[in-house]
Structure formats: C-alpha cells, structure tokens
C-alpha cells in the first residue's frame, strides 16, 4: 500500500518543555530472560510516534511497563518530566496512558457501552448508574469515530474488527493523553484503517500523543512524525520520519539487509487441485466458483466481512455449505466434514491462531503433532519420541525459535506461533494449503520467512489458497487474485493485471467487470 497523501499535516516542530511521556534506560528481566535491556523512548504531545522492532525486540515489555502491568527493574519512567512509579494498571490509566492491545479484551456478556465505561459508568443521584446517559455517551464516542455500533448490544458476537473499534472508543472515552496502539490495524480493512488514521490526526490535534506499534512499515510513514527502533531489548535509534527510508528502518530492526520481502514471482502451474463450483452459504456468500492449480498461489481479497474466511471455512468443511460442490483432485468432498478434507490433502491455517490454530497450554511438540497423531501412533498409543522428532524436524525446517519443545506455545512470539501452526499442517504434506492471514501480527523478519516458505511450497507443486487483508502481501505473493465483495466473487485478476486500484475498486463493489 503506498502511503496515502496526508491531509494538511500539523507542523511537527519540537514541542516546548519536557516530553509528555518518557522512558530512560528502563530494564526488565523475567528470571534469567532479559526482556528489556535499554528501554528508551520520548513521546511529545501532538505527535504520532512509531515504535518498530522485530518480535522479541522488547516492544511489548516496554508497553506493559507503560501500562503499569509490569514494574521496571531499573531505569526511570517520567510523565511531564517527573519520575513516576505505576503501582498497577489503574495508576497508569489515571496518569493519562491508554493502551489498545492487539488482541481485544472485551467482556462478552456486557453491553458495548458498559465495556467502554466499566468502572466509570455515569452516575445519577445516590451513586446509581445512569444507563440512559451511558448509552448516549457511548453513542457520542462512536459518532466521533464515525462508526455506528449499537451501544446496547452485548459485546459477544462482534467481529475482531468491531472489537478493536470498541477498544479504541474506550480509550477515547478516557480522554487519555497518550494512546498506545499495539498493532491496531491488523484486523482492519483499508477503509477502517483510513478512518483510524483520521482519528489519530484528531487526537494529535487535541494535544494527545499516539504511540503506534505496527509491523506495517508503510503505516508508520503515513501517520507518524517520529520513529523509534528497538532490537534485542535495546533502544537502537530515534529519528524524524523524513530522515528515514523503509530499508534504513528494516536494517536497524534486523541488523541486516532484507531484500525480497515478497520472493514469489511465479512457478510452473500444474493440474487443478481444488475445484469450487457455485458454493454458497445462506446469508454469507453465494455462487462462488474458482479453481486452484498445483504450483500457484491464489489469493482471496476483499474487505473485512466480504466472506473470504467464510468461503475458506466452507471449503475445508468447518462450516457447512448450502449449495455447490467442492472437488479435490477429482474427489468430491461432502459438506461439513473437515476430516474428509484433511484426508483428501487439504491443510487449513486459520485466521485466529491463538483460538483456532493452537492449544496454547500445550507444548510445541504436541501442537506440531496434533494433526498427525494417527500417523504417530502404534496400537492406538501415541509415541512421544515420534512426536518430538516430528516437531524438532519441522522446527529446524521452519527456523522456529523456541526454548524447549515441551514449553507451552503461549511462551512463543506471534511469528513463531504461526510457524508452529504451519508445521502442524505441512507435516501432513498437503496438496492444498488454505492459509488465512498468513502474517498477521508477525514481525518483518518472520514475515519474509513465511513468504519464502510459501514460495518454496508452490515451487514443489503444492497449491495455495491465501486470504490476506494486506494489499502488498496479496499483490506481492499471488499469481491470481479473486476479489470478493459482500459474499460474491466480483473480479478475478492475474498478477499482471492487478494493482492496488483495481483490487480496491473491486473490493468496494465499484467494478462493472465480470469474473474473468
């Protein structure tokens, strides 16, 4: 995605007085593991500041210290030039710091309005909650965001994108001075991202500071004035954005040059592996037909809610389909039977790896072996040694970074967790790999590894059906792009035909073209 032209940027001159929030040489260790060796950052009122670094660079530890969740072992945290100590999250919030986490943490049973105002519900006489005012206030916050979510509805059932919006509304309702946004755009479409950027500009105009943590470097260029790079728990550099290029940032982040972010440029195309014929699911999508051949990457593109993940889940059989047929290498698959799909050679890497792709409390070995237990058992008993060998083997091939194979996967970084999910499916040697958001929430270095892996896969004859909301990823990796809009397949683009404009036009329903 090329950085959009910013509307009139407010002057980004150095503000007077001490920085609003500052951290100097903050350190934090967990037992023997040094998570933060030199946490240094200075945030000024009215600026959007990007914090960049690979996974494991220490960004989330730094954020958790700002949030008052962790207490630093050394160094100083300063607000308006005064050293502070946050006894807990409440103290940090009271100081005007608001954190929007990557994984939204809402209360499913409470209403949206109550999610926003929990603990601060507006009161009438006698300290009784004024429900009507609460709903009005929530609606007002959403109006500021330019989005409408019914404040009276329970949070249960909201999509990831909508949950993020509620989280942002909550932060805005705090009138916080510093907004820390941890990968806020990971689940947002470009339309929603643009809206978010508008809000960031509004907040900046009101004197707030925004700390933006994102793996999408282009977003840093679009919205931020300054960049701080961290590596291996240490501060590396901080510069105004004008002084930097993407390459320079990447080099600071990984300490080496990373060319070839999207290594896939084409591969020999073979037989059709997946044939989808007029499949539909009432209320979700209809009349979807396409083919994926061996050796090609087909991407499903579209806005959030267009039905891409739903189509993939229906093909794999997690959700039932109401019409149409799915054929894998000539064999027709019955609807709603994922085990038949697996036996036919389909692998499925889901969108939400923590909830759907991994068993977080189980070890790396168990997770990698989870889809291959039948193969690894003898007389119905799983052979632990085979599990371990499989996991170690794939850990090597995928360059998985882990401490011990039996450590639970929640201890791994996002990128390594994704590798575990990939290992689980690739160890079955699928002929078709369906992968939903392959690099969401993953650092630049691991992203490139995953892309290289996908390229190797198709070179070896596997068919890949990829869903991605990151346009550069779609444009860079796919041989063919199928664009969905509100449950219908509206456009098919070849690699040569596709560019940002054509994909986005189709995704927003502006195309007159028929499916190729």
């Amino acid at each position: 995605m090329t950085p959009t032209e910013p509307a009139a940027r407010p002057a980004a001159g150095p503000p007077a007085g001490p920085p609003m929030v500052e951290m100097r040489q903050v350190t934090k260790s967990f037992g023997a593991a040094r998570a933060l060796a030199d946490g240094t950052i200075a945030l000024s009122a009215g600026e959007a500041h990007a914090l960049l670094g690979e996974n494991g660079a220490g960004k989330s530890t730094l954020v958790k210290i700002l949030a008052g969740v962790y207490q630093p072992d050394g160094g100083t945290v300063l607000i308006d030039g005064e050293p502070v100590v946050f006894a807990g999250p409440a103290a940090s919030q009271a100081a005007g710091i608001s954190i929007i986490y990557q994984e939204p943490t809402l209360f499913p049973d409470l209403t949206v309005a109550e999610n926003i105002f929990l603990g601060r519900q507006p009161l009438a006489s006698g300290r009784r909650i004024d429900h009507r005012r609460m709903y009005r206030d929530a609606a007002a916050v959403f109006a500021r965001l330019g989005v409408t979510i019914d404040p009276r509805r329970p949070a249960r059932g909201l999509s990831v994108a909508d949950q993020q919006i509620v989280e942002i509304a909550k932060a805005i309702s705090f009138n916080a001075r510093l907004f820390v946004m941890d990968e806020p755009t990971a689940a947002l479409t470009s339309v929603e991202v643009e809206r978010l950027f508008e809000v960031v500009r509004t907040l900046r105009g009101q004197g707030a500071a925004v700390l933006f943590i994102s793996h999408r470097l282009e977003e840093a260029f679009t919205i931020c004035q300054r960049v701080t790079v961290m590596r291996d728990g240490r501060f590396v550099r901080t510069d105004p954005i004008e002084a930097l290029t993407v390459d320079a940032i990447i080099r600071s982040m990984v300490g080496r040059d990373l060319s070839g972010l999207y290594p896939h440029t084409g591969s020999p195309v073979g037989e059709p592996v997946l044939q989808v014929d007029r499949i539909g699911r009432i209320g979700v999508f209809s009349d979807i037909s396409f083919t994926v051949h061996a050796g090609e990457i087909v991407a499903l593109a579209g806005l959030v809610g267009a039905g891409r993940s739903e189509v993939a889940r229906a093909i794999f059989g997690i959700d039932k389909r109401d019409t149409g047929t799915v054929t894998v290498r000539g064999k027709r698959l019955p609807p709603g039977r994922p085990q038949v799909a697996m036996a036919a050679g389909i692998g499925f890497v889901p969108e939400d790896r923590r909830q759907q792709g991994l068993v977080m409390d189980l070890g790396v070995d168990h997770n990698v072996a989870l889809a291959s237990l039948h193969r690894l058992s003898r007389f119905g008993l799983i052979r632990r040694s085979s599990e371990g060998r499989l996991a170690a083997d794939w850990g090597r091939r995928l360059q998985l970074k882990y401490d011990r194979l039996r450590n639970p996967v929640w201890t791994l970084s996002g990128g390594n967790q994704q590798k575990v999910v990939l290992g689980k499916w690739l160890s079955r040697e699928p002929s078709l790999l369906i992968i939903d958001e392959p690099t969401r929430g993953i650092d630049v270095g691991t992203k490139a590894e995953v892309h290289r892996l996908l390229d190797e896969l198709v070179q070896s004859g596997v068919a890949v059906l990829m869903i991605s909301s990151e346009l550069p990823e779609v444009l860079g990796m796919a041989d063919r792009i199928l664009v969905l809009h509100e449950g219908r397949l509206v456009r098919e683009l070849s690699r040569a035909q596709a560019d940002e404009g054509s994909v986005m036009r189709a995704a927003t329903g502006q195309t007159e073209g028929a499916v190729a």
Partner: protein
Amino acid sequence: MTAVADAPPVPDRGRRMLESVGRARELGIVAAIVIVFVVTTVKNSAFAHGDSVQQLLAGASLIALLGAGEALVIISRNVDLSVGSVLGLSAYLVGTLFEHHHGVPIALAFVVGIGVGAACGLVNGILTAVLRVPSLVVTLAALYVIRGITALIVSGHQIDPGSIPGSFQNIGNAAVANVPWLAILVTVIVVGINYAMRTFRPARDLYAIGSNPEAAALAGVPTGRRICVAFMISGALAGLGGVLFISEFATVNSTAGSGYELLVVAAVVVGGVAIFGGSGTVLGAALGALLLNTISQALVAARISAFWNQAITGALLLAAIAFDRFVSLRVNRALRKQGGASHG
C-alpha cells in the same frame, strides 16, 4: 459531525433478542411455577389452600436467600459450597446465645448470625482471591471444616426450643394473609440485591470479572476486593439464613443446613445464572429456588413418591442448562449476523 439524535437507527434484532431472552428466562420460570401449581391443584385441591401456599413460600425462602448470595459468587465465576455449613454454624451459635443469655435483644442475634457468616465468607474470599486457590476447592474445604467445628461445639446437644424467645420465633413462623414474614423479608432482600446488581458500579465489576477475568484485571478492576465482598455477602446471607432457620424451627442440631449448598447451586443455575459467570440475575436465582421448592411440595401433594424429588431436580438442572445453551447459540448467531459497525 451529525448529532447523535440524528444517527440512523441501528439494526438491533440481535440485541432485542438477547434482552427479550433475559426477561423471558424469568417469565419462563414464573410460567413453570404457575403450571406446576395449577396441575398439582387439579390433582389435589388442598395444594391451593392458604396454609399450603404459606408452606410453599416459607420453604423456598431460605434457599432463595442463600441463592441470592450464591448468585453473586457464581456470577463472578466462582462457587460457594460452604453456605449450608455456614447456615448450620450460625443457627447453632444464635441458639446457644439465647440459651445462655435469656434477655439478649433480638437484634444482637441477627448481628451475631450475619457476622459469623460474613467472617466465614471473608476467609473464603481471601483464600480464593488472594491466594488464588480455586473457589471450588476452598469452599468445599470450608464446607467440611465449618461443619466439623459446628459438630464440635454442638457435641450432641440440641437447642431447647423453650429458650428461644417467642417474639423471635414469630419472625420465622408468623404470616400476614397467608404470606409468611419470612417470605416478605427474603423478597425485600432479593429485590434489593437484584436492583443493586443492575445499578451500582462494584456490582457490574462482578459481571465483568465473571465474563472475562483477564480483561477485568487489565481494566484495573480490583478483582480481589470484589470477589472477597461477593463471598462475604454470600456468607452473610447464609448466616442470616441460619438466624431465620432457628427462628423458624426453634431447634438446631449439628446437621442443620446439610445438603443445602447443592440445592442452592441448582436453584441458581435453573434461575438462569451461567455456571461460568458473567450473566444472570439474583431475581432469577430466587425464582429458581421457588420453582424447585414448588415442585418438591407438588410431588408430596400429588402423592408421588418423594424419592422422585431429587431425580426431578437433576433433570430440571440439565434441562435448564441445555435450554440455555440452545438459546445462546441462536442468539450468538443472530448477533453475528447483525454485525456491529455500520460504516458512516
């Protein structure tokens, strides 16, 4: 920026569905009570007589009272299995108080009973919230320990009904127009707590803790304090139950209240409180108690063997949970289809 009043109405089928489901749950229990009542009266007209109805209301009162406290604990994703034992300890201590100090003011009896219960609840709360021992284990242990302590102090004795002042006994036995004072008192308490659960911030915190404990901690909710208070209220109400128990029966041995806890939990779940917390009302819990007691008495009136009572309670519990799952699946689907954000 359009004024909020001009904002287009948001499709809210899912939300309305959920609201109506919540209300329907309580109405459904009332309907079930009415149906059981009518059907039994057809079989045995004496069921509808004044003293029978009085028995119905009185019998449900203690369980409903304990249910109110239990609901708070379960809503916060915990459970209190010690309520029966606390009731027994409180009842015996109050009885002993009257036995040894004849002129004791009744108010003091209430203070002692409620105080003992609250103290037990505080211990439960500290072990659960601060030491992070699962509440199932904590309160199960408390069930045995408190029962054991009670048995020790009782050591075979039984409170002499003569030592309980008549005015005190009236509370548990007198009625006005066939409505027992006991039921009136419990209804007032239940309605009051139900209102409080909707209207005060700390109560909403309990729902938050039950709905997503990690998010609650991150949001700065003082989870430890809230859970301790929930257990204290549950204990206090159980203690109050003990006071009312001895007021009603005027005699206590070491087994008073035994087995109440399971009936209380069953009533709370049948009343619509999710077993994993986050949703449900105190009113629903009390109605659940009334339903279970009505069925229990109905079996006697219809001359069905009382042994069926437990089987039916269990079946009802299963039915309630299955129904809740079915309904919530439907509602979730509606909520998902409704979507959330419409893009302005």
